């Protein structure tokens, strides 16, 4: 129940992004593309899909601190993970290569909107707020899990009360806990946020904090990695959120191409394979 492939009837809110009217991205080419989505407009600059194809590179922004979704190999530098494999597969569908830009999560959206890369494939949850700025192509769903330090049992939202809670900054897990605090009166002893998910788990390991709230696959990864230090003791009381590829608004052609690629990968069972590869048996039922 904590992570699953996008299903056609899955938890996508409002069928959202695909139907959304293009409302202007940050870049002039994007704007132009938005107003004239048909590729036939010779007077307009090439759409971003055309540019990607011309360059032969799909530039992908990732926060490489989020195992097993995206992290670095043991050499300390090569990006690996579910999203990396998926991005490579998607790029292949577009007939190009994926090129990864590693950037802090808190700045990942600004980097996309600024035009430093074409898409974000970094387990980004599709939220209403984010949809105001970006379009999405969904490919997974994820819930939020609570990973506790040995001796602490956080089973439910209410159990966060009085605990030192750690999150990665500017993630939906942080927003979720903040909402609990604001709306449900749950009062953690402290809500501590770090740039990287790996920092959050280190807090558990050295006992400086009680619980990490984070996307379930990541919690599961750590629990598997070192069961003595990390245990998944509970889940946020919510429906799994949709996860998607983020792109600038109005790049309709690109969005459609990505959508098509994801659908094909799902149909071919690739998505499923990747889940098994990266989440193991526990994943994606």
């Amino acid at each position, binding site marked *: 129940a904590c992570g699953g492939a996008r299903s056609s009837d899955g938890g996508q809110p409002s069928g959202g992004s695909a139907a959304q009217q293009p409302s202007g991205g940050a870049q002039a080419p994007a704007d132009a593309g938005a107003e004239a989505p048909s590729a036939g407009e010779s007077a307009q600059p090439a759409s971003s899909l055309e540019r990607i194809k011309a360059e032969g590179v799909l530039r992908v922004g990732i926060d490489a601190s989020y195992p097993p979704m995206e992290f670095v190999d043991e050499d300390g530098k090569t990006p690996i993970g579910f999203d990396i494999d998926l991005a490579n597969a998607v790029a292949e569908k577009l007939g190009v290569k994926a090129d990864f830009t590693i950037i802090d999560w808190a700045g990942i959206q600004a980097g996309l909107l600024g035009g430093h890369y074409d898409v974000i494939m970094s387990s980004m949850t599709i939220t209403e707020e984010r949809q105001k700025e970006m379009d999405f192509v969904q490919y997974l769903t994820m819930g939020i899990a609570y990973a506790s330090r040995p001796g602490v049992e956080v089973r439910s939202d209410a159990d966060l009360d009085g605990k030192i809670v*750690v999150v990665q*900054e500017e993630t939906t897990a942080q927003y979720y806990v903040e909402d609990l605090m604001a709306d449900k009166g749950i009062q953690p002893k402290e809500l501590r946020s770090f740039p990287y998910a790996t920092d959050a788990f*280190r807090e558990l390991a*050295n*006992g*400086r904090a009680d619980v990490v709230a984070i996307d379930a696959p990541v919690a599961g990864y750590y629990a598997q990695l070192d069961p003595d230090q990390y245990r998944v003791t509970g889940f946020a009381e919510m429906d799994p959120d949709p996860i998607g590829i983020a792109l600038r608004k109005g790049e309709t052609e690109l969005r459609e191409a990505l959508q098509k690629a994801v659908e094909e990968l799902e149909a071919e069972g690739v998505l499923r394979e990747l889940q098994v590869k990266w989440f193991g048996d526990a994943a994606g039922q």
Partner: protein
Amino acid sequence: MARFIEHTLNILPVLFEGLGVTLKLTALSALFGTLLGLLAALARISRNPLFTVPATLYVNLFRGTPLLLQLLFIYNALPQLGLLIQPFPAAVLGYSLNSGAYIAEIIRAAIQSIDRGQMEAARSLGMSYGLAMRRIILPQTYRRLLPPMVNELSALTKDTSLASTISILELMKYSSQFVSRTNLAWQTYVWTAAFYLVVTMTLSALASRLEKKLEARG
């Protein structure tokens, strides 16, 4: 324009909250850093290698490596070596050690810039080294210390922008949070810059006023 004003009204309270933390962290670190720096400076100019060697190592180590690395070492590596420090104290420790190394060099330079004749005159009157340092040399360094110390204080203020890596919520972190939630990058950054500028410019202004006052004596 109306939107800009609206954003501003949203941004300012957040930034003010961050500024408070920034100032608190700066002030505490400056305090401990100055004490540490004074000790290290006196140790370095002494002629006893029992003092000079560790002081020199300390100063070179902390001036020779990035602050970010120092913060991460204190926060992430010390627990592995058995020393667990909470975020805010860890930040204060890191910034104090770092600024202490710089302040040590500032104080040392100031002491060494005092004419050798001052120490000689004091010693020739029968004053001991410690007495001469305390009554004659150090008081004369104050005016010379002022500009570099204010620089260091400014540097410290700006450097606290790294504290978010160890989960301290200060001005810069609030600022980047706001950017990530609203996507108002340049507006937020301009306001954030203004906040830092107000602090650093106020420091310089206070310093130059104080300097004039000290100068009045001749």
